[in-house]
């Protein structure tokens, strides 16, 4: 999104009369990016659908807390990331006493889902990503797939750029190892 577009939207969001219209523009602009950001973490389409909607509703209801000098895009990303992490925590707790881990069920979904059309190598890559700790997975996805700058990821995850670089490097090493051993 261009800086001017974002400024215009922020100005409209400030005004209560134009707020809804501006928020609809935001939804149109960012829903796809947020959808794929969440989808790569939770894999399942239906779960992603719920979480994207939750994220936008949360953003809308908390608009008054948004610092209007910050980037709205980064702020939305942050909300979606928190919604996603909370969801993963809940799922993990549900699988505490199960023989299978939640990540195992996600790996099965990659194999069987009609909404995943990658070849064997792509499937293996996704399974390798699922083996990463969730925060490392986030960093990897944001850098590798979303092409976000470290400074942007740093703002979203509130982590230093140095730590993010190290995290990404570890993630890539683990993924390559997993794929080469597969």
């Amino acid at each position, binding site marked *: 999104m261009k800086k001017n577009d974002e400024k215009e939207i922020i100005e409209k969001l400030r005004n209560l009369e134009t707020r*809804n219209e501006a*928020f*609809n523009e935001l*939804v*149109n602009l960012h*829903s*796809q990016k947020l*959808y*794929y950001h969440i*989808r*790569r973490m939770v*894999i399942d*389409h239906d779960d992603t*659908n719920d979480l*994207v*909607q939750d994220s*936008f*509703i949360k953003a*809308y*209801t908390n608009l008054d807390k948004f610092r209007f000098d910050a980037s709205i895009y980064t702020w939305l990303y942050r909300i979606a990331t928190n919604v996603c992490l909370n969801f993963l925590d809940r799922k993990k707790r549900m699988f505490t006493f199960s023989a299978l881990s939640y990540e195992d069920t996600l790996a099965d979904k990659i194999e069987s889902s*009609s*909404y*995943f*059309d*990658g070849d*064997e*190598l*792509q499937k*293996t*890559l*996704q399974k390798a990503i699922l083996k990463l700790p969730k925060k490392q997975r986030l960093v990897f996805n944001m850098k*590798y*797939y979303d092409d976000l700058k470290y400074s942007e990821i740093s703002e979203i995850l509130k982590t230093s750029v140095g730590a993010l670089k190290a995290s990404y490097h570890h993630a*890539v090493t683990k*993924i*390559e190892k997993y*794929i*080469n*051993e*597969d």
Partner: protein
Amino acid sequence: MSYNRLIMKNLNDIKKQNNFKTPDGYFEDLNNKIKEKIENDNSQKNNSLFQIFKPYIYMAASLIILASGIKFGLHTFVDPKPLLTPNVETVANAENSDLLYELYADDIVFYEYLSDPEELYAYNDIGDEDIEDYLCQYYIEYDLLNE
């Protein structure tokens, strides 16, 4: 050596692509759903404000109804004109002396009593027997009084 090892050495050898698919027209529906939810959320907010103030609104309404009822009742069942206002004009213009007597009966009796000297000094005629009778009647011990 595995299939993957044959074709890659590092991550850069894998084509970066998005393999996650969505149902047709999904994003249009998604945007509409989000907008709908936000509109519902707004209407729920209005409803919830009503819910918060509901008891106060009901209380105010019942007070207004009660006050209106009392006002209506007073207006309907109570004559706004007093029976007779006892001022100088009323007394001067009054033709019915019985009515006047009824109104001021106590006053008349009192003033008649004061203006009758015999009545005023009637207490002097009270004898010891009368006092004893009075004391007996109200169970007051006579001996104590004698002391």
